[in-house]
C-alpha cells in the first residue's frame, strides 16, 4: 500500500502540469514552516509572531551564502537553519521571561526589526529591491531545474523533519516537554529545567522555519522584504490553527488549505455565471486576507482543536447518529442508572 503511495508520488509530477507541481512545492515549504510554529505552539504554548523573520533569516542566509560566498546549497541549507536557530536562541531568551501577550509583542517587534534592517542595509541584502540570481541546487552534477525534481527535494526535507519531530517528541526529551506543557510548576518540582526546555523548543522552531526559508529562496530564486512581512507570521498562525495545534499533520493540512484556498478562489473568479463584482473580489489579495482573518477567528473560538479535529469529531458524531454504533457522546446521556 505504502509502496503504491510512493509510486504514485514519484509518477505524479510527470503526469500533471507544472502549475500543480508548483502548488505542491509551496505546500511542502509552508508545511515545514508551519511545523516549526506547531512545535512551539503545541509543546510549550508559546506564541511567536516572529516566524516570518526566522523564515526570512533562513532565506537571506542561504541566498547570501550561495551567491556571495558561493557555498554549496547542501551546506548552505543546514547553515541557514542554524543561523535562524541562533537568532531563535537570542529571541528565545526573552521567551523564557515573558508569556502570552508580552511574548507575542516581543516577537512582533523582532519581526519589525528584521524588516527594517533588511530594507535599509541595501548593499548587503539588496534592500527593498530584493536579491536576485539565487540558483537552484545541483545534485551530483545534475541541476534540479525542473519543478518536479525540486518538489522531491522539498518533500524529502519535510519527510525528514516530520520524522525527526515525531521521534523527538516520543523520546525522553519529548516526555519532559509534554510535562512542561501540562503543568509547569509540577514539572519544575520534578527537576525538569522548564526554561531550558522552552529555550530548546524555541530554537528548534526557528531552525525548522529557517530551513523552510532556505528552500523558499532557492525555489523562487528571488527574495525581497515583502515575503517576510508580519502578515506571513499571521498566515502561518492560521495554518497551524486550521490544521490543529499538536496534531503532527496539522502544519501540512493547514498549509495545504491556505495554499489551495486562493487557487480555488481565483478559479471561482473565472466562472462566467458569477457577477463581475464578485469575480473581481475573489482575485484580490486583500479579500483573501479578510477571509483568512474571519476563518481564524471562527476556528479559534468555535473549534479550538483545529479544523481537522472538528471535522473528525463531526464525522464521528454523525456516523454514530446514523449507524447507532458505540454509546459514547450524547446517546449515553439518556441512560443514567
Amino acid at each position, binding site marked *: 500500500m505504502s509502496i503504491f503511495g510512493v509510486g504514485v508520488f514519484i509518477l505524479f509530477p510527470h503526469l500533471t502540469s507544472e502549475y500543480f507541481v508548483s502548488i505542491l512545492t509551496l505546500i511542502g515549504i509552508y508545511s515545514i514552516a508551519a511545523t516549526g510554529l506547531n512545535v512551539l505552539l503545541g509543546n510549550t504554548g508559546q506564541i511567536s509572531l516572529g516566524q516570518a523573520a526566522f523564515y526570512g533569516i533562513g532565506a537571506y542566509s542561504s541566498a547570501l551564502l550561495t551567491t556571495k560566498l558561493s557555498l554549496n546549497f547542501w551546506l548552505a541549507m543546514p547553515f541557514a537553519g542554524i543561523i535562524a536557530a541562533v537568532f531563535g536562541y537570542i529571541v528565545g531568551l526573552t521567551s523564557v521571561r*515573558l508569556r502570552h501577550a508580552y511574548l507575542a509583542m516581543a516577537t512582533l517587534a523582532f519581526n519589525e526589526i528584521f524588516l527594517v534592517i533588511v530594507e535599509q542595509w541595501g548593499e548587503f541584502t539588496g534592500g527593498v529591491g530584493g536579491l536576485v540570481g539565487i540558483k537552484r541546487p545541483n545534485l551530483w552534477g545534475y541541476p534540479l531545474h525542473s519543478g518536479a525534481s525540486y518538489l522531491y527535494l522539498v518533500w524529502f526535507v519535510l519527510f525528514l523533519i516530520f520524522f525527526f519531530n515525531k521521534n523527538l517528541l516520543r523520546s525522553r526529551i519529548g516526555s519532559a516537554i509534554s510535562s512542561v506543557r501540562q503543568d509547569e510548576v509540577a514539572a519544575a518540582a520534578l527537576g525538569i529545567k522548564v526554561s531550558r526546555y522552552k529555550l530548546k523548543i524555541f530554537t528548534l522552531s526557528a531552525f525548522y522555519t529557517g530551513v523552510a526559508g532556505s528552500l523558499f529562496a532557492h525555489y523562487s530564486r528571488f527574495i525581497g522584504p515583502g515575503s517576510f512581512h508580519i502578515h506571513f507570521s499571521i498566515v502561518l498562525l492560521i495554518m497551524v490553527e486550521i490544521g490543529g495545534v499538536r496534531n503532527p499533520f496539522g502544519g501540512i493540512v493547514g498549509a495545504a488549505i491556505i495554499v489551495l484556498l486562493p487557487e480555488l478562489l481565483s478559479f471561482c473568479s473565472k466562472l462566467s455565471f458569477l457577477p463581475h463584482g464578485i469575480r473581481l473580489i475573489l482575485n484580490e489579495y486583500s479579500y483573501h486576507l479578510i477571509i483568512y*482573518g474571519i476563518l481564524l*477567528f471562527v476556528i479559534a473560538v468555535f473549534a479550538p482543536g483545529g479544523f481537522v479535529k472538528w471535522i473528525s469529531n463531526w464525522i464521528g458524531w454523525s456516523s454514530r447518529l446514523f449507524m447507532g454504533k458505540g454509546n459514547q457522546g450524547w446517546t449515553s446521556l439518556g441512560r443514567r442508572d
Partner: protein
Amino acid sequence: MLEYKLKMDLIDILQLLISGVTVGGIYALVALGFHIIYISTRILNFAHGVIVLWGGLLGYTLMVHLKLNFFLVLVLVLLIGWLFGILFNRIVIEPIKYVSPGIQIICLLAVSTVFENIAAVIWGKEPLSFPPFPWSKNPIPIGKLVLLPQSLWVIGLTLVGLTITQWVLKGTMIGKAIRATANNITAARLMGIDTRKTYSMAFGIALALGAMAGMVISPLTFAGGYLAIPILIKGFTASILGGMAAPMSSILGGFLLGIMESLAAGLISTAYLDAIIMSLLLLILLLRPQGLFASKME
C-alpha cells in the same frame, strides 16, 4: 550631513523636543486606551492599531468627501469610535473573554487583519494625505524656534482627551465602576455592578481615544496604509515604558517614547528609527517589564 549634525545646538534639540512631544501625545492617547482595556479586562488589545488607522481614515472621508465642519468631524469620530468600542466588546470580546490568553491574542490579531484589509479595500493601499486642521496654514516663529500649529492642535487635543478621560475615570460613577471591576471583578459583581456594561464602557472610551489619536496624527503623517501593526507596537511600547498598571504612567510613557523617538531620529538615524525603538521595547521587556515608573508588577 555629518557636519550639520555636529553643529546641532540647543535650538535644534528644542525643536526635536517639540516634535517629540507632539508625537508623544499621540502615543499617550494610544497607550491610555491600552491601559483602560488592560485594567478592566486583562486583555491586551492587539486590534488597537487598526482602530487608530480607522480613526484617521474616517476623519479623512468625513472631511474630504463629505466636506463637514472640522469640529463636527472631531465629535463624529469620537462618537463613532465610542459606539464601535461598544460593538467591538459585544461581537469580539464577549466570545473570547474566558478562553486562554493565547487564543485571545490570535483572535484579536485576526480581527486586526480583517479590518486592516477592509480599510485597504475601501480606501486603497496607499496612504492618503490628510488636509490640515483649521488655522494651521503658517508656522508660528518663537525666537529661532518654529512651531507648527498642527503640533499645537495635537498637544491641545491630547491634553483635552487625557483630562476628560481622567475625569471620567476618577470623577464619575462609570469610572468608579470601571476601577472597581479592574480591582476585583467578583467583588464588583457582588456589589451590584453590571460588569458587562463596565466592559462596554471601557472599550467605548479606549476606542474613542484611539480613533481620535488616529485623526489627530493624520495631518502630520498620513492616513491609512498598512500601518496597524507598527502603531500597535509603538502604543504598546509607550504603555510598557511607563508601566501598564497606572494611567498617569502610561501617559508619561507615551510622551517619553515620543521624545526619545524624535531625538533618536535627529541624532542617530532616521532609517533605522523603527529598529531602535523596537530594540528598546525588547530591552524594557527583558530588564524591567513592570515599566519605568511602576514600583511592582501585579
